[in-house]
């Protein structure tokens, strides 16, 4: 493949992706702003429920992994269980509900949906295993 063809091919991929990326970022950042206000009050104190809630909140949240550590650290200080915080940190990076339309467009709907479902389940399993091993 020649250089010009190669640039055009790469450009076409980005041409498809940029409009959706910008739209998804706009939505995700607006949702983040709304969610962040309620982060601290949605945890119940129940281990199982909180783990699920943590995983769910992480799935809808969006941003750099470091941000999830900072927020997770704050949760711990506020008395949220390590189990819930681990689930939150895990889904923050491995599950992306906000990015689902983009992932589906680029990598296929079936792939994107199943990957996110599996990663959500794995996040809860990893949280239980991590905290279980630490407490041994």
């Amino acid at each position, binding site marked *: 493949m020649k250089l010009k063809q190669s640039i055009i091919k790469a450009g076409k991929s980005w041409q498809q992706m940029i409009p959706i990326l910008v739209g998804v970022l*706009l939505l995700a950042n607006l949702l983040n702003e709304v969610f962040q206000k309620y982060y601290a009050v949605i945890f119940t104190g129940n281990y199982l429920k909180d783990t699920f809630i943590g995983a769910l909140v992480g799935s809808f949240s969006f941003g750099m992994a*470091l941000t999830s550590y900072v927020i997770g650290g704050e949760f711990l200080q506020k008395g949220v269980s390590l189990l819930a915080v*681990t689930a939150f940190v895990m889904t923050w990076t491995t599950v992306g509900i906000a990015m689902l339309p983009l992932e589906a467009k680029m990598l296929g709907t079936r792939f994107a949906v199943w990957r996110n479902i599996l990663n959500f389940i794995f996040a809860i399993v990893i949280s239980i295993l991590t905290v279980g091993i630490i407490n041994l």
Partner: protein
Amino acid sequence: MNQRKGNDNKFQNKTGGKGVQKFWLAVLSIYLIAFLVNSDLAWRGLEVTGQTLLKILPIILLIFGIMVLSNLFLTPERVKKHFGHEAGWKGWLYAILFGILVAGPPYALYPMLKQMKEQGLKTNYLAAFLYNRNVKIPLIPAMVYYFGWQFAIIMTILVIFFSIISGVMMEKITGE
């Protein structure tokens, strides 16, 4: 499998033209409502989006460059050899290592991954690669600071282990 691919293509075609327009109409409507209800919140959403786009611009340019180079030098035969059906354990190793070492948000990598998928990248390695995005070496000190070294070590090992399980299961589910 062909049926599944057909469905995916249908979705992609739909999202390619009118789908994108509808999506943008929805985004603009939501922002309009947000401005009417709480304009500070809406402005903040716009501001953070602008900052995010500026932050990822160098990564986008870098990945664009990598895609141009891979179009020039990475033939489908090479992709199939290292990330295709014949890759074996080396495919897992590359998927895990690249997943850990490649920088940037996962969504910025989607066009490159799409291109590699078209060239023969197997679903199991793709899923494992994306799962290992959770292990970031520069962020380990931060993880240790907030959650302790035991947590960082155990979680890192578990993520690598589960990336393989995720890859195997995704291959079985998607049948690709």
